[in-house]
């Protein structure tokens, strides 16, 4: 199976000490490598206001990571760990590779089109104005 790319965002309680945050991240990293996945990047967004209250909290500590794996077991394990982890109040995993693939395809398509012929500008506005003027005399 080909390799898949995932986004994983999780939110911790805002009062979590820095050491605990690092601990959560390192356990996740450990779990991912154990299952044959790989964490590409970890990005701490820090304390942010959430759009709605979660567990009566208005703020949360956001952590964003990109995971690479070739089977779904990794995601399953990470989500299980996030679920049982106490400081974690919310998490979301999104599969990204298909969208990236689509993005690439569109990009290539556009480049090819641009190479084939010079860009022409279409102006539909004058035609619209003409129609309205034609309608005016009947009033």
């Amino acid at each position, binding site marked *: 199976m080909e390799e898949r790319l995932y986004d994983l*965002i999780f939110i911790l309680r805002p009062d979590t000490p820095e050491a605990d945050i690092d601990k959560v991240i390192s356990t996740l990293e450990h779990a991912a490598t154990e299952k044959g996945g790989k964490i590409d990047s970890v990005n701490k967004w820090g304390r942010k206001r959430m759009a*709605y209250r979660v567990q009566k909290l208005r703020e949360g500590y956001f952590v964003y990571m990109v995971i690479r794996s070739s089977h779904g077991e990794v995601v399953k394990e990470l989500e299980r760990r996030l679920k049982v982890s106490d400081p974690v109040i919310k998490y*979301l995993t999104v599969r990204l590779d298909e969208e*990236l693939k689509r993005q690439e395809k*569109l990009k290539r398509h556009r480049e090819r089109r641009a190479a084939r012929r010079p860009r022409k500008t279409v102006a*539909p506005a004058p035609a619209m104005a003409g*129609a*309205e003027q034609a*309608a005016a005399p009947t*009033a």
Partner: protein
Amino acid sequence: MAEENAPQQQSHGPSSGGMRSSGPGGGPGGPGGGRPGGPAKRGKRNFVRKKKVCRFCVDKADFIDYKKAEILAPFIQERGKILPRRMTGTCSRHQRWLTVAIKRAQNIALLPFAAEL
């Protein structure tokens, strides 16, 4: 809505005149064209409307990132509803991507499902 109105009015012009002469039967088809205030209103509405353009097409966006709440925010109402295409001018393809992005952002508390009171 704006684009739809113009042709409708054109078709109403002659038909309303015909209905006035025939008298009865104007009831069902009448409400738009038969109204006495109709022509005056149309005159007022006759300015050239600026055509709305899809913002994502202008930027040539191949991907709408759900993590950037600030670019999604203009496309939701104050109460948290997703704005329809006719309000924002987004093209259908980008509106589809936008909807998915907004829903993902809602799930991770970057955007509200509904505004809090």
